[in-house]
């Protein structure tokens, strides 16, 4: 309620100031330039008990998550609010989201080379290794900053950002204060002259973040101010691009690292080459003790200051995306990824009449090679490691091949094959004795057939084959679209190969949707399997559920 009160006071103050300075006509003229934009989303589910899949009914019968953004812009001024409603929070989302409130509000203005933002803001320094404030509504993740941000263009080619604030913690803010500065120097623009015209372009960046949290521990002398810094570059010449970042964090004992005082470090490096019909990207990442939160005892996805992306392929097909998704291990991992995209030209053997696209992705993740300090460890370093040396325990490995082919003006297909290895004991925190590594083969056939200009039918046939975990799965989906307004889809995910015959369960789901401009309404019914839902290497557990779902989105 305080937030709402503050907004009203700010708006009233602004109106008072404007009224004293300007005539009624002037105010009208200014207001006429203003624009309001916004969007809305509502997700609702009626839950019913389904003992077969372990789904529970809820006392409220129906749970709902909803929000609406309203953004007002007028010249150099911008302000916005997001109203959020959780009545009560849907299963699988953090239960601390409960009730109604203003989850996000801000105002900003730009004055020549400077932009000032007060209130909430999202921001990122470099690749996010030491600072990224963002939201991912599908995960219930939101670590928006609440404070002040200044973006300052010192001169052509030299930009600086300064931030200070607290992080969002559901409808409150965390205890810690986060402050930092980031500078980016675009060498070509800064020095100008012949360099400005050069085909080789170089950008250098540096950032520093520090968090403050009081030491109230009787067990340890805890650092109240924990700093992290990073340096980065982007080098580009024509079709070749090379970029990288290195980050280091000083002693940051926390619940995540079992209160050790070892310094943390991380790197991310990527090179890419792309030309018409061909693209190649190679990347590597190393992380050692880089969990960084504004409260030492925070857990799960709460109050994370930095972002450590998963260097694995992000999947859309449900068996690939939801059964064994990889989540970044902030205490230590080394990852490599390569991706090749090639388009076979039309009228060739492999290209056929319409051309064929081929995508090959390989990613692999290992632990870091470390040695635990046994005996006297008065400095509480926990372990030693050589800089980013690869350990002998594999966390994840996948080769993925995707072929996209158009057979005729009416028929298009996407064919995917994936072979993966998944260390469930480490990634999902299970006991290794009874949770061995999973080796799986996955195939997906995705066909779209245009019946006519307005009518299309799409089918997905997916199969996952493994001897471990719950053995073999299949998914079948059929989706009928009547453009531009209607679609209907039916899906069944079936654990047909489960060794336990009583667990060979059908997870069926049906949905019908109506789309009109920016309005979209979808009604669904069916089962949701318990599992893990991930976006960009950040994951949350989703419990099993059964019931009717309603989803409405709109924007203006």
């Amino acid at each position: 309620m305080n937030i709402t009160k503050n907004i009203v006071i700010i708006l009233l103050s602004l109106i008072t100031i404007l009224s004293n300075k300007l005539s009624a006509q002037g105010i009208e003229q200014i207001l006429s330039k203003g624009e309001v934009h916004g969007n809305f989303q509502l997700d609702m589910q009626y839950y019913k008990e389904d003992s077969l899949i372990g789904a529970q009914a809820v006392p409220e019968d129906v749970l709902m998550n909803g929000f609406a953004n309203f953004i007002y812009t007028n010249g150099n001024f911008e302000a916005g609010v997001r109203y959020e409603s959780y009545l009560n929070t849907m299963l699988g989302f953090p239960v601390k989201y409960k009730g109604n409130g203003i989850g996000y509000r801000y105002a900003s203005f730009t004055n020549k080379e400077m932009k000032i933002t007060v209130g909430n803001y999202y921001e990122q320094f470099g690749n996010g290794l030491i600072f990224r404030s963002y939201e991912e509504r599908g995960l219930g993740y939101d670590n928006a900053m609440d404070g002040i941000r200044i973006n300052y263009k010192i001169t052509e080619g030299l930009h600086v950002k300064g931030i200070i604030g607290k992080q969002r913690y559901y409808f409150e803010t965390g205890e810690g204060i986060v402050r930092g500065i980031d500078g980016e120097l675009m060498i070509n623009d800064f020095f100008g002259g012949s360099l400005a015209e050069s085909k080789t372009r170089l950008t250098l960046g540096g950032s520093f973040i520090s968090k403050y949290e009081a030491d109230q521990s009787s067990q340890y002398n805890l650092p109240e101010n924990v700093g992290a810094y990073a340096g980065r570059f982007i080098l580009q010449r024509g079709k070749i691009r090379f970029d990288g970042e290195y980050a280091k964090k000083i002693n940051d004992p926390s619940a995540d690292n079992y209160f050790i005082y070892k310094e943390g470090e991380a790197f991310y490096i990527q090179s890419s080459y792309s030309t018409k019909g061909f693209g190649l990207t190679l990347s590597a990442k190393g992380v050692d003790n880089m969990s960084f939160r504004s409260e030492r005892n925070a857990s799960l996805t709460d109050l994370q200051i930095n972002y450590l992306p998963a260097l694995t392929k992000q999947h859309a097909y449900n068996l690939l995306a939801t059964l064994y998704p990889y989540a970044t291990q902030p205490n230590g991992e080394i990852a490599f990824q390569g991706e090749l995209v090639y388009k076979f030209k039309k009228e060739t053997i492999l290209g056929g009449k319409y051309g064929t696209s081929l995508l090959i992705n390989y990613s692999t993740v290992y632990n870091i090679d470390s040695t635990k300090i046994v005996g006297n460890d008065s400095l509480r370093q926990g372990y030693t490691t050589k800089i980013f040396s690869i350990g002998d325990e594999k966390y994840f490995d996948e080769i993925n091949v995707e072929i996209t082919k158009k057979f005729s003006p009416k028929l298009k297909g996407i064919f995917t094959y994936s072979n993966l290895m998944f260390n469930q004991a480490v990634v999902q925190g299970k006991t290794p004795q009874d949770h061995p590594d999973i080796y799986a083969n996955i195939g997906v056939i995705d066909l779209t057939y245009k019946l006519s200009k307005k009518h299309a039918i799409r089918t997905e046939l997916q199969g996952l084959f493994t001897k471990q975990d719950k053995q073999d799965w299949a998914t079948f989906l059929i989706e009928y679209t009547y453009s531009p307004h209607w679609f209907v889809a039916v899906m069944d995910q079936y654990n047909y190969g489960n060794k336990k015959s009583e667990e060979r369960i059908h997870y069926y789901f049906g949905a019908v949707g109506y789309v009109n401009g920016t309005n979209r309404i979808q009604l669904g019914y069916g089962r949701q399997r318990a599992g893990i839902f991930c976006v960009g290497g950040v994951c949350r557990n989703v419990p099993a559920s059964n019931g009717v779902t309603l989803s409405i989105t709109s924007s203006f």
Partner: protein
Amino acid sequence: MKKLIYILFITTILFSVSCDKIDNPIPKNTVNVDGINWDDSLYIESNPAMRKILVEEFTGHLCTYCPDGSREIERLDSILSGQLISMSIHAGSFALVPANGAGFDANGDFIMDFTTDFRVLPAGETYYTTFGVASNPAATVSRLNNANITGLAQWEIDINAIKNDVPKVSIGLSTLYDDSTRTVKAIVNSKWLATETGNHNLQLYLVEDNVVDWQLDNSIYVQFYNHRHVFRSTLNGTWGTPIPSSNLGDTNTQEFAIILPANWSKENCIVVAHIYKSAPNYEVLQAEELHIIP
């Protein structure tokens, strides 16, 4: 360029004031918690790769074969080097103080004195009856198989079955001691290393080691018998206190205090903390112990 110099200057200041490099993680002086300057504070955090094993042995000063059980536990402790936490619960008929506990011979010399009551009421007797102790030596190893009570030949087998388990929960245990009031305070932080279903409790005990008193040992009345790890009291009730949730990453902090009676040696007092599955399972998932003073 002036602007750049100005910004670099601010950045340098920010760098220098916003990093606290700690060279002495463990405080050496007294600590102030809740307005009290505690004389001593200790802390231990469980090794995330080691499941500690709690052996709760049921004994009595008039149990003639119980010392065999105690010696077996000491042997196992020497093999497991730091992985075993043991506790002797004096309960049942062998732990009673007999009416003729203090005996004299014809010359008026002491021949035996079993007047010390080691029992903890009602907790010790509740464990004794709930777990169903039928004969001695008797113990339960991390309360496996619904706190199954077994004889000493089974203990090593049970220990070997679980000693390489990866712990599902970690325990951080702090003890604070104020000598002016003889108050012991224990703070326990738990963190789940895996998601566990069902309900779980945190249990805190106070144990006193090396209590010298009479004991019947293989039909011999021993006057200066060294009683190891004597269960003295619970800090949070007979069955402990619930841990609200047990999903991967969940943390919980609880703290409890107890005042030491004058006849308990502060140097020998130990706080034992363990997390177990609620009844009827009872299995102890992780345990830690820590002295109250260095």
